[in-house]
């Protein structure tokens, strides 16, 4: 049904939510932008003048290290997710329906459980008296400090975000006809050669989607680094939380947030561009 007539019913249908988002998404972010341009005041939170100081301070050593660490951990997390996620995605894509349903359930279910709970589980596993150390002690070895380190944070982040890598890659692999795999093998390719020559190039758009998702989720993570990381080596999310709710440095928090938004937006555009290019290559156009 094509309704381009006088009564814009579509406006009535989409209006409410559009309005809602306007008020609760766009306005708050505009608000943040505004805050980021006021100087910070420990007593009054912010002063009415306008300044770029909040953005300038991002180039201080502390913040440079902060962002550097965050972006680096995000990269490591993404790389680890690719390594763990690709084989899983392939298995799921080619699995028989019953196995695929079970596999998807086991993949998505933890995703939906609050991140706090999964982190709690890891704390029990990696803690000083946790599983791993208990096992080491019974083997006669010394307990190892695993928590409150970058390694622990990466483990936690990978654990939580791997499904976001698996799902788009799985969807991409499913679109590759199994007969292409068979043709490659028939022409003499071992499974690994087939994977590199056929699956990888043709599932590239899915891989890019997955990387984008995992990376942007990792760099904005809060709960995992807050509970599992070294309190002296924070990630950006923790810094924002601290500046909003603890030190009430709202201007500072605002500038950090917007910087993060810009980075995320740049990633999205980069990924979109890369996906379209990869997609065109895959079709040979």
């Amino acid at each position, binding site marked *: 049904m094509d*309704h381009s007539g006088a009564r814009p019913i579509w406006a009535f249908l*989409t209006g409410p939510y*559009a309005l809602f988002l306007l008020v609760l998404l766009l306005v708050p972010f505009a608000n943040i932008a505004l805050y980021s341009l006021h100087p910070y005041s420990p007593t009054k939170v912010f002063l009415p003048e306008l300044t770029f100081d909040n953005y300038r301070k991002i180039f201080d050593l502390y913040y440079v290290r902060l962002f550097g660490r965050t972006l680096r951990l995000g990269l490591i997390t993404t790389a680890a997710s690719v390594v763990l996620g690709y084989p899983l995605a392939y298995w799921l894509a080619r699995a028989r329906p019953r196995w695929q349903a079970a596999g*998807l359930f*086991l993949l998505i279910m933890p995703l939906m459980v609050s991140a706090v709970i999964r982190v*709690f589980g890891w704390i029990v596993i990696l803690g000083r008296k946790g599983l791993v150390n208990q096992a080491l002690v019974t083997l006669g070895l010394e307990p190892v400090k695993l928590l409150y380190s970058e390694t622990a944070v990466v483990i936690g982040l990978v654990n939580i975000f791997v499904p976001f890598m698996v799902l788009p890659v799985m969807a991409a692999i499913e679109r590759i006809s199994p007969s292409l795999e068979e043709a490659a093998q028939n022409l003499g390719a071992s499974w690994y050669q087939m994977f590199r020559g056929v699956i990888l190039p043709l599932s590239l758009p899915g891989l890019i989607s997955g990387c984008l998702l995992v990376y942007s989720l990792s760099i904005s993570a*809060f709960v995992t680094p807050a509970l599992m990381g070294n309190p002296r080596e924070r990630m950006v999310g923790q810094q924002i939380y601290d500046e909003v709710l603890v030190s009430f440095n709202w201007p500072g928090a605002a500038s950090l947030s917007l910087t993060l938004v810009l980075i995320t937006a740049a990633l999205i555009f980069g990924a979109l561009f890369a996906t379209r290019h990869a997609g065109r290559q895959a079709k040979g156009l």
Partner: protein
Amino acid sequence: MSARSPRLLGPFVIATYLGLLAPLVVVIAVSLGPSAVFEFPPRGLTLHWFEAFFASPAFVTAFFRVSLLVGLLAATLATVLGTSAALGLVRFRFFGREALETFFLAPLLVPEILLGAALYLFYARLAVQASIWTLLCGHLVICTPYVIRSVTAGLVGLDPRLEEAAMSLGATRVQAFFKVTLPLLRSSLVSGAIFAFIISFSDINLALFLSGPQSTSLPVHIFSQIQWQGDPTIAAASSMQIVVIGLLILVVQRIFRLRLVV
């Protein structure tokens, strides 16, 4: 199965799944064990921590009065908002439709922690106190896109001529919608609603910013308990959430294609 997979794939996949599920298994095991120190494997089976959970006013309020309530409200409202939005997007052609669709799904791309901070600052500027309602509004922003995705997927698979057929038999547009389209969308609606509930129920990033003294959600309470070195009551609370969400996901999987919503 067509092409032969390498022999290592199976074990690798199993190992990955074990790694993914390990924390959840551990949490459930700890919640059933008698020790006050987190111990695994637990020495015995007891429901002691679950009793402690129900005996703790903070936990009970967080679970039932806040998380459950907000979740149900969010699910209902998100379904109404989202279904209406999806209908407008799928069934009509208008200038800027694709841009609007991207806008509607934008909350999925915004880092949650930033949204939480933005909403907190927004409420602060308007001098609005933190309450269930501020939390609910925040949740609606992130839950509705899931409903929109689910209902859009369902609508796209629905033949619009069915409504036209109903109208040719005498139904008005509204009647046709309620008698023909809506029943056929049932599985999309239900799974969208369930997803909205789950997203709201398990949200931590928004709730950290939007929780108030009377409106502390379960995940936030668990978070503070972990920070303050609580006892395995945390595990009991977590287990309950795992079970609730696990069952809901199973339901969705039965009636709808899971991956279309995530």
